[in-house]
């Protein structure tokens, strides 16, 4: 069982960045195909120098409290960093999960792949000129299966 401390209580009682961004530049979804649980990440992005920068981030979870805690922590880390740094954050998060029980790993993995989906969706929309919501399904590896869904959750 997870050990409970004041920090964990704080994430559970008042998760950081919980909710949605009405003016999001991109939305990405991480989904657990085994039970239908989902994490939705909303990003507001600005371009700085030659990189994109996560100006604001929010998430919603249709999932258990562990996922909410993971969302609270990971979105806090991602706020205010460049896409390159966020890619590193995702890689580190997924790498750490190799040593975690599969059920608990799935919660953080869902948040990480949702962030990846939101970033990839943003980059695709730059090329296509059309907003696209990507859904990445989790698995116990670092190469999420891609499912393209252009209509759902589209703004």
């Amino acid at each position, binding site marked *: *069982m*997870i*050990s*409970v401390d*004041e920090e964990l*209580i704080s994430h*559970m*009682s*008042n*998760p950081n960045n*919980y*909710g*949605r961004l009405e003016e999001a530049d991109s939305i990405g979804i991480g989904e657990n195909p085994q039970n239908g649980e*989902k994490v*939705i990440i909303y990003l507001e992005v600005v371009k700085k120098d030659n990189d994109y920068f996560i100006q604001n981030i929010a998430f*919603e*979870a*249709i999932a*258990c*409290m562990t996922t*909410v805690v993971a969302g609270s922590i990971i979105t806090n880390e991602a706020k205010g960093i460049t896409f390159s740094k966020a890619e590193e954050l995702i890689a580190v998060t997924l790498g750490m999960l190799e040593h975690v029980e599969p059920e608990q790993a799935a919660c953080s993995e869902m948040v990480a792949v949702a962030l990846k989906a939101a970033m990839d969706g943003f980059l695709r929309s730059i090329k296509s000129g059309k907003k696209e919501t990507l859904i990445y399904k989790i698995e116990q590896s670092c190469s999420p299966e891609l499912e393209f869904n252009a209509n759902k959750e589209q703004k």
Partner: protein
Amino acid sequence: MKNILVKTHEAWLVTLMASFMAKDCESKRALNDFSDILFRHFTWIERELIKNGIEYDYNRDQIPIKVDRLKVITNNIIERLNAIELMLPQLSSELSFRMSKDFDYIKFVLSKMPDEEVSAFNASRKYKDYNLTQEATDALTLFLFEESYKEYELIMIYNYLKAHSNDDFLNKIFQILVDESFFHLKSFGEMMAQMGILGVPRVIHKSLYQVEDVVQFLKDGIEEELAAKEQCKELSDAVAKDSEDLAKFFDFINYQENYHIELMKDALKHYESKGV
């Protein structure tokens, strides 16, 4: 008009949380009654939105409730009611009049409510005088956060289904399930406040209540109730050696789930037979 639903939703939740924080019995009772009234306002506003063909959802802002004095939260409720009052002309005159008069009385009582220190956020994680082991305390903490959200979610889901159904049989079932979840949310909220870990349940994603396939939703719901029963049983076992009272409480909650499952099965049968 949608905004008044959002603001009433928020005022209801703040008042409910304040009722959990209050230690004085009279203040607690009054705040709980007022939260019930505000929830009823919420459902009546929702009915007017539906009648007028206005689309809406249950999205709302995060609600900060961490205070050290009860007066701070009662003043916040008064401010919220004042803000809603400015929007009342958007509603039918009958509902607007009713809410306005309710607000007058609620604000009058809140302004006179005795102040007290709030300990609902001190993270003591001590419940009554029970000596729970660290493992049992952690299990109870996680359970309360998970299940208080779940009960709030169920209230909103069944309320939404009821608001959008004209079937008397189903509506009776949905109302019972709403009432039952209110009791559970109240029980868990009171425990969280006593343990110093009170938190407002997070916002529900609209896909959870704007249900496209009600039959599948009920089937999944029955599975979830069975899982909740199992969690209650596990928690009861975890705390049994430290507290007979707590173990009995979780057994009591566990057995209540049996009836919910039967009601959901009835609703499922009804949906399937009538193709509602």
